[in-house]
């Protein structure tokens, strides 16, 4: 092809993709009003109401915090990180009226957490607690950051304080996560049920907890999980995490066409890297490697986009690259960068272990795998990684034991690797 024709081709493609992308963006923005009925509109209604009230009464700072809270909810529903900018603006304005307000620190801490800067989130969260030690939500913010930094004992303390001040949806949900980390799955399910029973003014919150519950049920009871994911959809229609859950359930039942449909739908509503990866993993399973590669490229692009929007995605990207044998040196760089910041987090140690293993360094991998197991042999993915690493370190007995344990805990823990367990 001549140079001229290549340029024309590229220009043509650019034009088409511009049009496609423009419509795509419109879809993403209109999702709230278009497809979904009044369950989701509450968030938008509240935002509009508060924005209006602020513009006519900018002295009432409580409105700024109420609005920030709703924006955080909107980010949960749309993953639109641009909203963090608006929250920052609101806080800048409140600061001019009284910089030592604990709510400012708490709000900024939540923004930092959303961008995965957990060190900053902890610092700001603790400032808020210092100013008001009896506000339950501040302890929740500090607890969340402590979990991400791998300070699990401190997190338990913080959430216990939160619980003792005010048992609620927020403290039940956090307790569920800590119990899961410590391997008490039944206890985690109990807490999620309490959270769901408590309810929330936002149906999305209940749907999210139902999905968390479904994921735990999925380990031992696929039918129960299917029911729970469907219940999540009944609470919040087309909830992407519930669709993705049904995708995994379909995969477990070997309905690969159905799985792709669910993941594609989730991806259409919420175009995030995880769902693109999920589609790719199903295509890989059924041997359509070219299609799979396209989706992996899409996933990588999504990670880069999030990165350029100010979110630290090193952890997620490192694992993704290693899993799909794409640019292992970049994976290693990222994994080591995260480890430097938060070495005590068992998922961080595990990701570094896995990347090292994939990079042909099983001995080094083992060091970090051991760290990832320091709370106990609870997490299926960590156990799987440990099993493979043991195998690579010429320890077949240990490998067999760990992989068997993985299968006992969660036979469908991964679409990519589950088939490796079936040969045991």
């Amino acid at each position, binding site marked *: 092809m001549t140079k001229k024709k290549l340029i024309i*081709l*590229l220009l043509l493609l*650019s034009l088409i993709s511009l049009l496609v992308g423009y419509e795509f963006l419109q879809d993403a923005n209109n999702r709230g009003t278009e497809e979904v009925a009044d369950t989701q509109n509450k968030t938008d209604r509240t935002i509009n109401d508060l924005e209006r009230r602020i513009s006519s009464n900018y002295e009432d700072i409580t409105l700024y915090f109420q609005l920030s*809270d709703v924006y955080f909810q909107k980010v949960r529903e749309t993953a639109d990180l641009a909203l963090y900018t608006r929250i920052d603006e609101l806080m800048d304005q409140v600061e001019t009226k009284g910089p030592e307000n604990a709510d400012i620190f708490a709000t900024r801490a939540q923004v930092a957490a959303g961008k995965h800067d957990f060190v900053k989130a902890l610092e700001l969260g603790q400032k808020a607690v210092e100013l008001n030690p009896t506000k339950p939500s501040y302890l929740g913010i500090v607890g*969340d950051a402590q979990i991400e930094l791998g300070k699990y004992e401190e997190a338990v303390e913080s959430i216990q304080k939160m619980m003792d001040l*005010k048992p609620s949806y927020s403290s039940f949900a956090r307790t569920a996560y800590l119990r899961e980390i410590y391997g008490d799955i039944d206890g985690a399910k109990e807490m999620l049920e309490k959270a769901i029973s*408590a309810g929330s003014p936002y149906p999305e919150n209940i749907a999210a907890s139902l999905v968390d519950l479904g994921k735990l049920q999925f380990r031992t009871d696929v039918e129960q999980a299917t029911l729970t994911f469907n219940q999540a959809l009944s609470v919040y229609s087309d909830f992407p995490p519930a669709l993705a859950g049904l995708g995994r359930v379909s995969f477990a039942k070997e309905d690969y066409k159905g799985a792709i449909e669910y993941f594609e739908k989730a991806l259409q509503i919420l175009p995030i*890297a995880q769902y693109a990866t999920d589609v790719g993993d199903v295509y890989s399973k059924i041997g359509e490697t070219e299609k799979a590669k396209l989706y992996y490229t899409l996933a990588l692009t999504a990670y880069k*986009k999030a990165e350029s929007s100010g979110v630290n*995605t090193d952890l997620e990207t490192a694992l993704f690259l290693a899993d799909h044998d794409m640019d292992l040196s970049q994976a290693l760089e990222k994994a080591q960068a995260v480890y430097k910041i938060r070495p005590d987090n068992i998922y961080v140690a595990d990701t570094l272990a896995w990347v090292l293993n994939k990079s042909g360094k099983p001995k080094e991998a083992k060091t970090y795998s051991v760290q990832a197991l320091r709370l106990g042999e609870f997490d299926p993915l960590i156990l799987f990684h440990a099993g493979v690493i043991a195998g690579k370190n010429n320890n077949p007995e240990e490998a067999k034991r760990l992989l068997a344990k993985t299968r006992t805990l969660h036979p469908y823990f991964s679409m990519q690797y589950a088939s490796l367990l079936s040969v045991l």
Partner: protein
Amino acid sequence: MKIKLIIMLMSIVKKFTHLVTREKYFIGLLLFLSLIALLMNTSVSASSHREAPNIAADPKADATDVYAFISPDKPNTVTLVANYLPFEEPAGGPNFYTFDDNVLYEIKIDNDGDAEEDIAYQFRFKTNIKNNNTFLYNTGPITSLTDPDWNMRQTYTLARVEDGKISKSTVLGKDLSTPPSNIGPKSTPNYESLQSAAIHTIGDVKVFAGQSDDPFFVDLGGVFDLLTIRTPPGNAGGGIDGLRGYSVQSLALQIPISQLTRNHETPTDSKNPAAVIGVWTAASRESVRILRDNGEIKNSGKWIEVSRLGAPLVNEVVIPLGKKDIWNSSEPENDAQFANYVADPEVAKLLNLLYGITVPPQGPFGSANQRDDLIAIFLTGIPNLTNSGVTKASEQLRLNVAIPPAGSPNRLGVLAGDNQGYPNGRRLADDVTDISLQAVAGAAYPLFHPSFTPDPLAAQLGDGVDTNDKVFRTSFPYLALPTSGFDSIPHP
């Protein structure tokens, strides 16, 4: 599907690989990818860590109103009502509103004025799921309370506790049924008879727990938007009832007066201190140990109060935002800590600022200028009406059981000369918003300072909403039936 289009385009680009040199292909692909990147949503994967919401609201444990009045059709009994779950949309399906099985709901009574509970009625709920393979509320029409088509039947236990001691607890009724939510003519036909089957009689006591029409009426949008009165001064309508069409979860009891008073009698002299009882509701949740010990089943801790309510509008109008958590989890006996907000009210200053009303002098609690009229109304009881002889400040809804039901009740209660009305207890039709606004503006001040003449506007203040959108009924539980989901118009 746009993603499919993007994928298609990407595969087209790949197809041209063999036609161009390697470098040119990569340049092209890079260009293309950066365009895609530019246009993709700015989002991140929600995977490697859990992001649970951090919400302050707890709707099922959120008390909206308390009512206490001598039953008009049974004047030797008191009716107590405590409502929960604000803004309950009638068309709440497919997961309809219920009480929370994990909450301890209580209606408490202080009958000797020491700000501590003497009697508590406790409600504990249990949801009985008929068919575990569905999450539907009902699988067919619910024609009776035991109809198997009602998949999520909620029942409750009612207990009476004396002096706050478990050892003095008596179970009054077990497995008492609530009615189903009012869904519509197919799911819950003959709703009135379904609901009346859920009114239980236990000895001399009647009890009901279930969905009702929200009896409160107030121009929410106006009042809480910096005290906006749509048609000032507010005594000629023009307000919009922000609670119109919503339902609530109601706890209702009808109890012989002698079972509530300190001397176990039915006083007839209103000046008898034993004639005054104080009422409030509280909701509590059990604290939980974050990590369970190995094999240990009992991992719960103590009951933590998460919500409390006595007199109306205290938490909305008197207690500032920063103090609400402390208020909700504190006991009435410690209410002196909030006395400043009553003695030196912000709302009075606003009424002066916005409407030019000459309000009474005010000052911090304990100072000469403190609003002793409001302290009486909210914290200690009005002398010779709702004061039981003790001056310990505590926020309760105080009822004088020796004042019989009024022949012609006036919605403005005591301020209009109807001493059976608010702030003497609270009847469903009492217009507490107007009464509170007028009281804060000084309408009751002459009771304590006879030389003070209230601003003429004070007695005309109101939010312009004078009645509930639905008519109350004439027998227990008196609350109007909830709007069915089918008939309701979802709020915008």
